[in-house]
């Protein structure tokens, strides 16, 4: 049962990781908690569902199109709600992000209605069973896609020119712009990529849990944010680790402590980790400059 629960946690955690990546990438560059990320995740899930169910688009194509669509939504939000506030206090931008989140959520509610939509799994259901572990084909695919996307992102950030520019901008935006990096473009790309990853998570959650609703972004959005902080916000490997850890912690709390206190236990672990590592698991230790 322990191994089964561990695997349950890892699958849930891999989804949290994907959401957390969107938060952490944006945070790394403009120090903003992109509160609307959960809604972008929801938009991605809707886009995927509509393409598959109403237009019969093949699943993987729909998956990519949903990522692209959510990327564009992310860009728009950045342009309308965050860019005008880039030179303002961070809290002003945070409130603007909250406003954007409420707006997007209710926009989806108006357009799509409140009743949950079914997002049928595109794969033939199949379950693999061993004596200690049961896992379905769908879950294996979700795990594979999550890790594939995480590796692709790592490659993108580490090896490509744009990725290097992103890292430079994250280090010091002014210097980066002096070095001839178009900072606005880099921020846009960050939102594009982060939002696309959010949409990927949204589509996968859609098929995993079979439903898409306008409210689906709220809790996963919060959990993704928590995961990002847990790992050390602004740090990409941190987001991956934080997501996995949060998923496993939640599942273990439900399994071995009490399912009533599932989320409470997850948050308690978060606070405990922060108590010992005040900047998250992989956050750099900051020596205060005096």
């Amino acid at each position, binding site marked *: 049962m322990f191994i089964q629960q561990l695997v349950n946690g890892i699958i*849930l955690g891999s989804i949290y990781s994907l959401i957390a990546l969107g938060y952490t990438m944006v945070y790394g560059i403009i120090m903003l908690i992109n509160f609307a990320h959960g809604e972008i995740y929801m938009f991605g899930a809707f886009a995927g569902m509509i393409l598959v169910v109403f237009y019969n688009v093949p699943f993987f194509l729909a998956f990519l199109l949903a990522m692209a669509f959510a990327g564009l939504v992310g860009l728009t939000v950045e342009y309308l709600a965050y860019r005008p506030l880039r030179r303002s206090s961070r809290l002003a931008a945070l409130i603007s992000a909250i406003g954007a989140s409420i707006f997007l959520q209710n926009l989806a509610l108006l357009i799509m209605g409140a009743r*949950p939509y*079914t997002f049928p799994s595109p794969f033939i259901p199949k379950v693999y069973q061993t004596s200690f572990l049961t896992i379905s084909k769908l879950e294996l695919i979700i795990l594979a896609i999550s890790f594939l996307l995480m590796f692709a992102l790592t490659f993108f950030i580490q090896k490509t020119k744009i990725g290097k520019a992103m890292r430079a901008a994250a280090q010091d935006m002014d210097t980066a712009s002096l070095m001839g990096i178009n900072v606005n473009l880099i921020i846009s790309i960050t939102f594009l990529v982060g939002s696309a990853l959010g949409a990927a998570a949204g589509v996968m959650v859609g098929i995993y*849990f079979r439903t898409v609703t306008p409210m689906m972004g*709220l809790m996963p959005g919060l959990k993704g944010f928590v995961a990002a902080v847990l790992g050390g916000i602004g740090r990409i490997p941190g987001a991956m680790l934080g997501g996995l850890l949060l998923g496993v912690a939640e599942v273990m709390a439900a399994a071995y402590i009490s*399912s009533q206190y599932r989320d409470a236990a997850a948050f308690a672990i978060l606070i405990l980790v922060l108590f010992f590592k005040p900047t998250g698991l992989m956050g750099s230790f900051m020596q205060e400059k005096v």
Partner: protein
Amino acid sequence: MKKYRLTMFIVLVLCMALLLTSGCSTQQAAPGTQEPEEGTVEETVDVKVGTVGPLTGGAATYGLSVSNAVQIALEEANENNEIPGVNLVQISEDSEGDWSKAANAFSKLIDQDNVNVIIGAVLSSETAAGGPIVMDGEVPTISPTSTATGLTEGNPYLFRNCLSDEVQASQLAEYAVTELGLKRFAILYTNNDYGVALKDAFEATAKEKAEVVAVEAFMDGDEHFRPQLTSIQQKEPDAVFVAGYYTEAAKIAQQAAEQAMSIQILGADGFYSPVLVEIGQDAIEGATFTAGFFSADPNPVVQSFVARYTELFGEEPDMFAAQAYDAARIVIEAMKQNGTDRQAIRDGLAETKDFPGITGLTSIDEEGDTLKEVLILKVVDGAFQRLR
């Protein structure tokens, strides 16, 4: 000093705005009432019926069902001129699923809109917050869906029209043991008043006659039930009683299938929605649950309601809609019998006896609670079939 003046100015402007806009409240006349029937010369009086429920937020789907069903009931009454000289007007207020906002909505309906009767609220917490307000305002209120124990006690203005959690859960437990021959039960409940009441009642009855091997909880709106299901699977029960609503039930069934767990699923009236089968698909096949409403019921009233609802809103009504429709019908009946002022409606509601609703024969007891018969339904080939 300048800052101070600016502050006062803005505060003043806001107050003015508040006063101005509250003058023009949102009265949407139910369609179908715009043109009075030909030949009727007599003046009609508008009687306002308020509804309160979540139209936005996570519980919006339930609130919208209620608001939609009430709209149909009022339209029908207006079309058929059921209460001569009276035109029923619906005023629908949003609670966001937040009971303090629901309390604001109740106050607004009572004081600003001057409604004669309120149908709502939807969530038990909302109705609990509204209870004292409608009692102070002496406005009869009937909740179509709030099942929390004792909600209407000691409040002569608060009624409800829903199955009692205790009754349906204990009847289901009994049926499961005697008719279905199940012996080992697990309970998976949503941690809100609805789920907790069902769990307590089911556990009590099931323990007398059989065994309850596992009790697990989840939160409203959760999507991931694998850890709970894994724990339950370990205990090898014959059946799992899911005390929650249809979306969650369908997901639980799907995720149980995901881990090769074939188990009898039991549930309560919260299961009743076409969404259950849409999302649950094969996994929900065979699930057995209690309900107050059954859309395949040959009763013509049921059929005409289902047809009209589906035509207007593009989906089949769920349990919330059915109960709200009945609640509105009971209100209309009370108006017909007693008159349309607040006190008359209250007395009419209190006297409701054997009302033939789409959710069965309904009587209201002295505490304002409903007595109804409980149906037992089963999912067979993606449709609901009546077992009892």
